């Protein structure tokens, strides 16, 4: 079961779009690979097939997925679209981070210093960064 917070006020189709976007951006759903059927995905996510359909249609509009009339639905092979989606996601994470740091009273300079020292303290994290 995926981590959809069914009890939140965020529309479920938006939560599903977000989760699938992350799967594509992380490569868990590889470019060019086939997407399972709507009904199977709906059962996997534990949601209604109409909700799943709505989420998939939205991802098609974004260009992350595309349909072939008979063969089914696929993840785009256009890495430019995937990169753009990745940057948008990163932007959202950063915006939220900056907002929270500001709320705690950290200045921009102090925040950047803290980020740098956090990278130094977490060798694993910075190593992954270099590889990507």
């Amino acid at each position, binding site marked *: 079961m995926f981590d*959809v917070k*069914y*009890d*939140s*006020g*965020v*529309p*479920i*189709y*938006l939560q599903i779009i977000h989760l699938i976007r992350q799967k594509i951006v992380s490569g868990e759903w590889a470019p060019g690979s086939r997407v399972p059927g709507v009904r199977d995905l*709906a*059962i996997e996510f*534990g*949601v*209604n*097939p*109409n*909700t799943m359909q*709505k989420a998939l249609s939205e991802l098609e509009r974004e260009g992350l997925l595309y349909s072939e009339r008979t063969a089914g639905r696929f993840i785009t092979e256009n890495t430019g679209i995937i990169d753009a989606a990745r940057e948008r996601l990163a932007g959202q994470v950063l915006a939220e981070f900056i907002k929270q740091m500001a709320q705690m009273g950290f200045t921009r300079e102090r925040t950047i210093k803290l980020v740098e020292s956090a990278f130094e303290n977490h060798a694993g994290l910075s190593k992954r960064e270099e590889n990507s």
Partner: protein
Amino acid sequence: MSSLLEIRNLFKSYDRGPVLKGISLNVESGRIVGVVGPNGCGKTTMFKIIAGLIGDYQGTVLIDGNPPGVKSKEIISFLPEKTYLDEGIKAGTAISMFADFYKDFDRQKALEMLKRFNLEPGMKLKSMSKGMQEKLQLILVMSRAAKLYILDEPLSGIDPAARDNILDIILNNYSENSTVMLSTHLIHDVERIFDDIIMIGNGTLLVAESADALRERTGKSLDQYFREVFRC
């Protein structure tokens, strides 16, 4: 396009007073619709009228264009709140009975589901737990190829672990051409499967809209919104 279910100005009174005070709503095909409201708000009465079990009401009720009657009963599969099966009946016998009675009943599908949910055809109803009984009855109701499934409180008295099973039965069996109307007071456990939500309070319609539209409009989950509306 005409709706699968159309209700206009539905009124119903019992001796103790009015139960439904002018309900109007449409339900489309291919949806899973949650019907919620406090106990005694009129959900069961409305379901019984749609299913053709209560005849003396005022207003208009059309199922696929027909008033409740022989024609509508052919396309409605109804799970009542209280069982009508004899407690001595075996699961297999109940399946045979439904297969004889309803021409749209898929015996094979029923037997497969029985197996999948760990029930034996030889089990008697009275030897089953409440959850097992509820599963059997839901299997019977969902094994018909109906256009409208009406499930009155299919989750009450079922432990949380088995509730997911019940939702699986519903999600696995409803098709694009059919609609499921499901009443519950356990909104939290089922809101993820609803397309649309109907809220009834004290015999009147409070909300009838898409579940995600309500989340977007209120910034709340259906459960949070429900608790707020019906706070005592």
